[in-house]
Each structure stands twice: as structure tokens, then as C-alpha cells.
């Protein structure tokens, strides 16, 4: 009973106060957060430039690939491998944007499904006929297939070069690169001619609005493509034993950690609305959270990403090797990334209160 009296006393007090507030304009911080500005920053300073970079890299890859197939020697192979690495890094910056044309075409499924299916690749090469855009070939195309073609078709470089005496290998390599190039062209063209204006103007809080889809896609990317595919699955988090061969870029064998760090940096830059790690903080989720009085969460997310990065930086340059030598460090990195997932999926989604794209039911 005492509790009740206490509560009612507070009620009366608040009623009295809030009355005077009404006229005094005691409000703080209206959510005038400019979502169009956020979307514009994402599109103009992050998404489109990253796609242009990737496109530029892939064009170089086409040229260097042609040079190699015309003359498969060690120098041309080394050159091709170097461009493959730099383009693969460019790709990491584009993979989160599974929206618009990229979503329609299942762009990322045609660019980076790993582990790649070497048996399918060899069968395609042997047959000489294939439809690389077929869903069944998603695990025989893209960067992982290229990884195999440049590092894995034989044990030594000499043997690899010998493989390319076969015209079918040359054609497959050329076709792989050509498909990646044309897919990227399609996505980029759509962004510049059509989707950009959709993206920056579709800012309502509905299931199908671009701003909500982007938030959902971004979190999904982080959880699935980054946390699970790069760390969780090879580290055996979801299986009774580690599955080292499911790591990224296993045939190259030296870049998977860096690819992961680039991907994580990219996630953080998108969060902070930054074009690159050295750019100033721009319009993005960070500022949006602060606008919603959630500085605590914005800071926590950056801290957790930083902590995850530290866990990744101490890993072997090749994550497959890391799994095989000391998997504990790998799962520790996974755990650190999982904390970021929690902050994104639970706290950030709650703060934004976005309509979630997968739940269709009444509430009460």
C-alpha cells in the first residue's frame, strides 16, 4: 500500500511538472535525423566509389588476364596474382551492399561463395561448355574460383603454368574474369543511372524502404559473411571439428586475415559514415544513434569492433593455417565478433526500431 501511495505521489508531481513543460518547450533532441543525408553519404561517398574501384580493378584484371593467357609465364602469372589480390580486397568493400540490382542478380553469390567447388570447376573446364551464371555454378565462379585457378590447379607454379597450355583452362579463366567484370558493370551502372535516387529517397520506416533494407542487409552481412563465413565455420564453431578448408582464399594461403581486417574496417567505416578509415566521421549509423541519445551504444559498438580487430590482428596471415595451428585464437576472434553482432542486432535495431523484414504478424 505504501508503494502505491508513493507511486501516486510521483504521478501527481510529474503531471504538475509536465504541464509547465508543455508551454515552456522543454523538449530536447527531436529526431530530425536526416536519413536522406545518411543515404546520400552512403551512396555517393561509400557505395558508388567502392564499386567504381572494384570495376577499375576488374578491368585491370581482364587486361592482365589476357596478357597471361596470351603468354602463360611466371612473370605474367605473378602479375595476375597481384591484381587478383588487390581486386579481392576491393571486393571486400563492396560485399555488404546486397541491395538494388546486386540483390536482384544475387551478385555476391556469383562473386564470393567459398569454399569453391574444384570438382565442378574441373568438370566445367573438361567439358568446355558451361553456363557460369547458372545457380549451380555459384560455387565455381568468382574470386574463390579465381583463387583456385591461379594457385590451386597444380602443386607448383611450373605445373600451374603447364595447365595453361590447355586452351580450356585459358578460356575458363578468361570467362570467370569476364563474368565478374560484367556483373560489376551491371550493378554499378544501375547505381549511377537508377538506384541511387531510389536509395537516397526511400527513407520511410517500412519493410521495403531502402534505409531499412540497408540496415538489415548490413547486419546480415556482418553476421553471416564476416563473422560466420570468415571465422565461425572454418573455426568449427558450428561443427564438432574445425573445418580449416572452409576459410577464404585458401589456395593463395596468405591473404585471408587481411581480407577479414579490410572487411571489418569497412563495416566500421560504414557505421561511422566514413569513406575510408582516415576520413572524418560522416552521416551514418553512429550519428543516427547519437541523435537518438544513444551515444553509449555508438561508443560501445566502435569499442567492440576495435576489440575484435585486435583479436584478428594477432592471427596468422592465413586463417586456414591459424585453424590448423591454434584454433583457440580463431574462436576468440569469433567471440569478439559475436559481441558486435549482439550490439547490432539487439541494441541498434531496438534503438532504430526498424520494421524487420522477416517478421509478418500482428502485435498487441
Amino acid at each position, binding site marked *: 500500500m505504501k*508503494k*502505491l501511495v508513493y*507511486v501516486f505521489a*510521483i*504521478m501527481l508531481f*510529474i*503531471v504538475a511538472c*509536465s504541464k509547465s*513543460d*508543455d508551454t515552456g518547450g*522543454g*523538449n*530536447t*533532441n*527531436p*529526431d*530530425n*535525423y536526416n*536519413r536522406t543525408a545518411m543515404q546520400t553519404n552512403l551512396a555517393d561517398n561509400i557505395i558508388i566509389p567502392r564499386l567504381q574501384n572494384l570495376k577499375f580493378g576488374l578491368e585491370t584484371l581482364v587486361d592482365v588476364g589476357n596478357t597471361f593467357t596470351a603468354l602463360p609465364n611466371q612473370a605474367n602469372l605473378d602479375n595476375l596474382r597481384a591484381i587478383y589480390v588487390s581486386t579481392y580486397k576491393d571486393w571486400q568493400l563492396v560485399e555488404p551492399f546486397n541491395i538494388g540490382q546486386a540483390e536482384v542478380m544475387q551478385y555476391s553469390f556469383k562473386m564470393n561463395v567459398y569454399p569453391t567447388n574444384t570438382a565442378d570447376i574441373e568438370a566445367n573446364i573438361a567439358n568446355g561448355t558451361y553456363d557460369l551464371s547458372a545457380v549451380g555454378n555459384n560455387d565455381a565462379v568468382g574470386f574463390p574460383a579465381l583463387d583456385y585457378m591461379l594457385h590451386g590447379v597444380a602443386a607448383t607454379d611450373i605445373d600451374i603454368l603447364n595447365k595453361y597450355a590447355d586452351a580450356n583452362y585459358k578460356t575458363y579463366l578468361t570467362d570467370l574474369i569476364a563474368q565478374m567484370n560484367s556483373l560489376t558493370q551491371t550493378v554499378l551502372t544501375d547505381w549511377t543511372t537508377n538506384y541511387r535516387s531510389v536509395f537516397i529517397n526511400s*527513407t*520511410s*520506416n*517500412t519493410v521495403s524502404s531502402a534505409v531499412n533494407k540497408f540496415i538489415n542487409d548490413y547486419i546480415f552481412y556482418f553476421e553471416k559473411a564476416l563473422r560466420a563465413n570468415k571465422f*565461425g565455420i572454418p573455426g*568449427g*564453431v*558450428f*561443427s*564438432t*571439428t574445425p573445418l580449416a578448408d572452409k576459410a577464404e582464399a585458401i589456395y593463395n594461403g596468405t591473404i585471408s586475415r587481411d581480407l577479414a581486417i579490410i572487411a571489418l574496417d569497412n563495416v566500421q567505416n560504414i557505421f561511422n559514415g566514413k569513406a575510408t578509415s582516415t576520413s572524418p566521421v560522416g552521416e551514418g549509423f553512429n550519428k543516427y544513434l547519437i541523435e*537518438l541519445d*544513444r551515444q*553509449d*551504444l555508438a561508443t*560501445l559498438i566502435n569499442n567492440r569492433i576495435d576489440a575484435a580487430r585486435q583479436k584478428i590482428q594477432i592471427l596468422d596471415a592465413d586463417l586456414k593455417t591459424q585453424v590448423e595451428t591454434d584454433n583457440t585464437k580463431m574462436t576468440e576472434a569469433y567471440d569478439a565478433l*559475436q559481441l558486435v*553482432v*549482439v*550490439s547490432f*542486432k*539487439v*541494441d541498434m*535495431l*531496438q*534503438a*532504430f*526500431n*526498424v520494421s*524487420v523484414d*522477416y*517478421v*509478418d*504478424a*500482428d*502485435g*498487441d
Partner: protein
Amino acid sequence: MSFNLNTYLNKTTDAAPLAVFRIGFGVMMCYGIIRYWLKGWIETVYIQPEFHFKYYGFEWVKTLGDYTYLLFLICGLSAFFVAIGYKYRLAIITFFISFTYIELMEKTTYLNHYYFISILSFLMIFLPANAYFSVDNYTSKVSFKNIPKWCIDAIKLLLGIVYFYAGLAKINSDWLLKAQPLKIWLRSKYDLPIIGETIMQQDWFHYAMSWSGMLYDLLIPFFLLYKRTRLAAFIMVIFFHVFTRVLFPIGMFPFVMIVSALIFFDAPFHHKIINTIKSCFGFISAKAQTITYQSVYPVRNRKLVLPILGLFFVLQLLIPFRYMLYPGELFWTEEGYRLSWRVMLMEKMGNTTFKIVDQKGQSFLINNSDFLTPLQEKQMSFQPDFILEYAHYLGDHFTKQGYKNVQVYAKSYVALNGRLSQLFIDESVNLYQEKESFKHKHWILPFKDEIKGL
């Protein structure tokens, strides 16, 4: 002034309000079933999932596969028969059983208003809602102008309990002193025309809505009872429910409440409604002249009905307070949260992952989407009874697959009303060993903040 129970129970009143209520209820339920069907939710909620969350004590309720459509058909038809008052008693019993069975099949879709419909239809089994203006009158050639007053008061009382308890639940520090969760919800409605970027973003508005929502729920039953405030109160009912309907995805509930509130009006109003209906179906009422009107409906088995309803209302008054028997913060543990008219009261989200460990010490994490639908996963992630039930399902699943001595551990983070998420479940507890019961779940970690209030 002294209140004599017997005198009260013998009082009679016009039968029209209950008849109108019956029609409104039946029509809306019939529409609700059709709506659910057309949205494809029978498929996604009841047929597609391979696993269903069940209420404690109702694990025996089986899902029916494709026959679920038949169940919905029966439920919808019985609602229609209730509306027209044809074989009313059988129809309302069928509706109560089929509707309740549907709800018991899957806990994930629990809504207070489904529970409301279940208990309301239970109550209606005992009320002579077909005494007046029903097909039953036509077939039996007897109609009753009056019914016992308590028959209508019972519905008013139930509605009053729903509103008043919903108001009591809002007397807590998050709702009143932080304007949570309305602050989160209202601000996210920035895309509404005109008000979206203006008042929906104002602090004072969040508080005003929280406080007026609480006062509305507490007071509206009384304003509806009192004749001089009734019309104004009803206009508020319409405004309030339409407004919440615009803001939140709450389906049929606002319309159910608006139509239900009509019962508070006096009989002449209901006669007008009935006359309107009659004039629309003039060809039927022309034939209905053979009906003999009797003055008072005699309640059969009064000695049985009245104690049942008495017990029913005592339970309705007590059940929402059962949370007091549990330690810890109610919003956090949700022990005693359901069946208590805690409506739109908190913004709670979680992320819960499960680890399976076997005898050999092998362990792996579960990808929840392999077993649950997105809706199930969302609900499971922050409700302890769901977490426990799912842990047992996983334990059984992997035991069947041949793993020995399976242990199931949960790592769960939950955020409540805009607080930072915190660990929710004791990670060191093998949930496969824990049994569901009405006892407190000791493996729920304590809430690190405090919410004061009822």
C-alpha cells in the same frame, strides 16, 4: 444502500445490447479468421514450422498439418453462426474450443487480445446472447425482451478488467518517468505525414502519450459506465484505438475493443442498430412475425452457472497479480507476464545462441534458423520459457542423432526499453537438465537496473 446479491441477480434488463454484442463479436471474429487465412498466416505460423512452442501444461496440443485449414474453417463458421444466432450455444462452444485450440498450438503468436477473445467466448457460453434478435428465435418461435442484468454486466466487467489492469501495468517508472518504450516507438514513426517529423519527435509528446495512455486505461471503464460521460468516453475509445492502429501493427484488436465498448450504451441505442439491420434484411423480418415475445429469459442451471462465472472473475482478478509470487523484475523474467493485460508495455529484443556439448566434450553452436522460423527465433530470443523449451527440443534432436549425454547451454543477450543489452541466461547451466514448472527459473540472470512500480 446495502447491496443484496440476490436482488441484484434477479434484476432484469433489455436484451438488445447483448444481441448487438453477439452480432458484432461474431462478425468480427469471422472477419478475423478470414483475414488471418488470406494473409497466409495459417501456413507460415501453423503448418510450415517443424517445431512449435507450447504453453506449459498444454504440450499435448498437437498441430494438425493441412487439417489446420479445417480447424480455421470450423472456427470461422461457428463465428458466423454466433453472429446470426443460429444454434447459438453449440456455435459459441465450438468457437471457444476451436479458437482456443488454435492459440494453444503455437505460443509464439501469443497476444493479449487472442487471450481476451478466448475468455470472452468462454464467458459468452453462459450468456443468453441469442435470447433476442437471433435465428434461434425464429426456429423456436420464442424471443425474450429481457434478460438478467448480470448477463450484460458480466461483459462490462470483463472489459473493465482488461482496461483497468492494462492501466495498472503502466504504473511503472519506465513508462511514466522515462516514457519508454513509447519514446522508441513514436520516434521511429518519423515517416507519418505532418506529425511524423514534428510532434512524434517531441519529448513532451512521449510523456503526454505515456501518461494519457495510463490514465485512459484506468479511467475509461468508469467513464463508459457513467451515463453523462459515456458518449465522450466512447469518442475517446474510437480516437485512442484508431490512433494506436495507425501507429502500431496491432491488427484487429482496436476494432474489437471499439465494437465491444458499444455494450455500455443503453438499450434504445441498440434497438436503433437492430432496426437498421432489420431494414436491411426486411424480407426476413417479414416472416419473423410468428415469434411470440416473452418478457424475461429464464436462465437454466443458474445454480451451476453463477458459481462458475464467480470463479471465472475471481481468477481474472487474481491471475494478473501472480507475478508477485516470483522474485526479480517481471519485465525481465516474464514470470507471470502473460494473461495479465500487459499490452504494448515494453520494447524487448534478444539474441540467444545455443551450444551443444556431448560426452566426449565435443561442442558446437546452433544456427537457430535451421530449426525456427524468423518469428519463432525473435520471440524465443528474450523469453525464458521459450529458451528452455527450445533447449529441450535441441537436446532431444541431437540425442536422437546419436550424441551421448547431450548438454545444452545458452548464451543470451537481451535489451529492455532502450537499455544496453546484458547477459540474460546463466551460461553455465545445462538447460537440458532444467525442467519447466511454475517455479522461479534460477538460471535467469538478475536485471542490472530497477523498474519501480506495480
